């Protein structure tokens, strides 16, 4: 089992993830955008349209404007998720030295690792709490409960399990895993020279659940970061008003 999850499954996962995303987007693009069915705010140029799409993605602007209680959970959750994803890459690759490498004259190696740990733990807890809040909201708020399918809850539970185990490894020293061990293992995978999984049950579980999440990613609503781009591309595009002025009138502009 350790052999399969540590040495074989990761390659299957990545193949399904990348292939699945490509396949799904290809399917989206079968249908044409026939009509210029723009929605407000009617940007006047492509630049303005792209800025609006990015602003929606970065700020969750519509949620902030129209459903503040959801934004309180959704925005921190996604920010924490992005930070954690970036932190995993940078922290593991640089062994926690990312801040030292970025600002060597300001941050010592020791301080960088401490900052990496502190940020990871903080965002991990924010992520967990925000997910719990979103799960509670799905159960408790009627308008959301009535439109939810079982899978909507399962996605949240899966993320909660992943981040819960991650947080546990952060907070309980006996369960933790050093950056070096993780890097050694990941480097083996990336260089097609798979190394055995570190002897840590929590890491095994964390790693397995993450792979399950990545496998279902292209076949579920988790695709929504791509969905927002492809969908807003239809609705947020420039529209020019026709020139005013009526022909052949006695009173003209």
């Amino acid at each position, binding site marked *: 089992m350790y052999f399969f999850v540590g040495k074989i499954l990761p390659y299957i996962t990545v193949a399904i993830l990348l292939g699945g995303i490509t396949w*799904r987007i290809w399917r*989206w693009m*079968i*249908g*044409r*955008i*026939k*009509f*210029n*069915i*723009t*929605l*407000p*705010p*009617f940007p006047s140029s492509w630049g303005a349209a792209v800025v609006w799409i990015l602003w*929606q993605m970065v700020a*969750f*602007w*519509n*949620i902030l404007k*129209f*459903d503040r209680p*959801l934004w309180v959970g*959704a925005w921190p959750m996604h920010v924490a998720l992005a930070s954690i994803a970036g932190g995993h890459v940078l922290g593991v690759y640089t062994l926690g030295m990312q801040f030292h490498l970025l600002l060597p004259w300001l941050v010592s190696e020791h301080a960088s690792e401490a900052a990496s740990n502190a940020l990871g733990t903080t965002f991990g807890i924010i992520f967990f709490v925000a997910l719990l809040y979103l799960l509670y909201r799905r159960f408790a*708020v009627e*308008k*959301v409960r*009535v*439109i939810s*399918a*079982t*899978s*909507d809850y*399962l996605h949240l539970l899966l993320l909660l399990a992943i981040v819960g185990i991650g947080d546990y490894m952060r907070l309980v020293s006996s369960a933790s895993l050093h950056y070096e061990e993780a890097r050694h293992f990941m480097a083996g995978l990336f260089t097609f020279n798979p190394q055995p999984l570190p002897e840590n049950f929590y890491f095994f579980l964390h790693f397995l659940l993450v792979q399950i999440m990545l496998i*279902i990613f292209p*076949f*579920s*609503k988790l*695709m*929504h970061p791509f*969905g*927002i781009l*492809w*969908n*807003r591309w*239809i*609705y947020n595009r420039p*529209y020019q008003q*026709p*020139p*005013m*002025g*009526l*022909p*052949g*009138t*006695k*009173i*003209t*502009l």
Partner: protein
Amino acid sequence: MPKKVLSDGTEVAQPHRAPDRLMKRLHVREVPDAEKPAMAIKWLDYYRKNRRSLTMAMESCVKCGVCAEQCHAYLGTKDPNNIPAGRADLMRRVYKRYFTVQGRLFGKLVGAEEMTMDVLEKWFSYFYQCTECRRCGHVCPFGIDTCEVTMAGREILWGLGMVPELQGAASAAVFERGNQGAMTQAGAVDTHEFLSDELEEERGFRIEFPVNKPNSDILYVPSSADYLLNPETLKGAAQFFEYIGANWTISSYMLEAGNFGLLTDQHSVQRELVRRLWWVVADLGIKKVVFGECGHGWRAWKMYTEALTDYAVAGPGYTYKSVPLVNIHQEVAALIKAGKLKLDPKNNRLAPSGTYVTLHDPCNYVRADSLGDVFRYNLYNSVPAVREMTPRNEKNFCCGGGSAVLYDDPEMYDLRIKFFQKKADQVRASGANHICAPCSICKAQFYPMVKEHNLTTEDGKTIMPVNGLIDFVGAALVFKGHRQI
């Protein structure tokens, strides 16, 4: 039609279905019930491959629930199927079952569902409760426009022969007469003469309505409902064209600013009006087309004409004369801004002093085009006082009649009353005593609903009057002389 009882005993309200004779006139064959589910899947497959907006609406929703309390239909009925995400889910569940990996593998777990007659009956109920106002699209973090789902759903139902009588009759009239009210040329000319008489009494000089006049520069396309319900709107437009001394005409062959085809059948009905429009433009030598007050109509012309023309008129080897299409409000606003229209808001026949007008922003004017400020500019210049509603402009709520869900059958009429609840609250809170709704369908919804919700003026007895916007502009125009000579 009484409520439709589904196989699990639940009841859904549905509009009255088109009778057989009407269906034949539309060339629609009703598919036998046993074959409907399979045929519906075929159509759904067709639309998902042809409209990216539908595919993305099916595949991007995360069920966050932001749309729920932004939809007047849900606010009025508290029916989960009227939450935009829930309404789209009526189709999305089936879509998942047949066109997604997760739906085929996991079925109910991911909310997938088999296509059955019950599902189609629910579509026929709830897709005709959506007013396609796009407010959910405006608030959705992903920009998912549920209107694209209900429009495709209605088209699939149309293809199966599940056609509401109202939309069916209006569409048959489009094929027959070029307008949804089945107005004939004689009927239009008669109405014009009557309105000219009225204008003569009011203004002291006669204003004519030219019909099918060759070599006209401007084609004015009113909503055919103006002939049945909104005479002041026609008069307002005529006064405007008279004031600027326009060489204008109305065509009896193409007498419809609205286009129910957009909402039920884009394949044939919507194209028929596009075809008629270019026919008239070529025939009468039109240089610019000005559309009258109709919200969804303006959306249909503004967003769909160019692409639909390719199919309806200009196939390979054909040429057609393309002229600009504009809305009358934009032209009025441009002229007021240039200081070319003299308006006296204090001396407006329709809004005497003491009148506080509130502006209802028709959904498709403000969420399919940015005309909210244009309306306000025209209104503030034409009436003595304005009391604004909240929210307004592109955040405004629908009147509950949008996309022509203006059914008279008791079940659907009750729903219309509920859909209007939010609007009634808004109007009351504004403190106005006169409503301006620059859209034919809005007006058709307001006329009975102000009574149903007892929206009265200060005396508590008089029902609030409802007018269009060009009505006020026309009545406020100060003529220097006949035809401005």
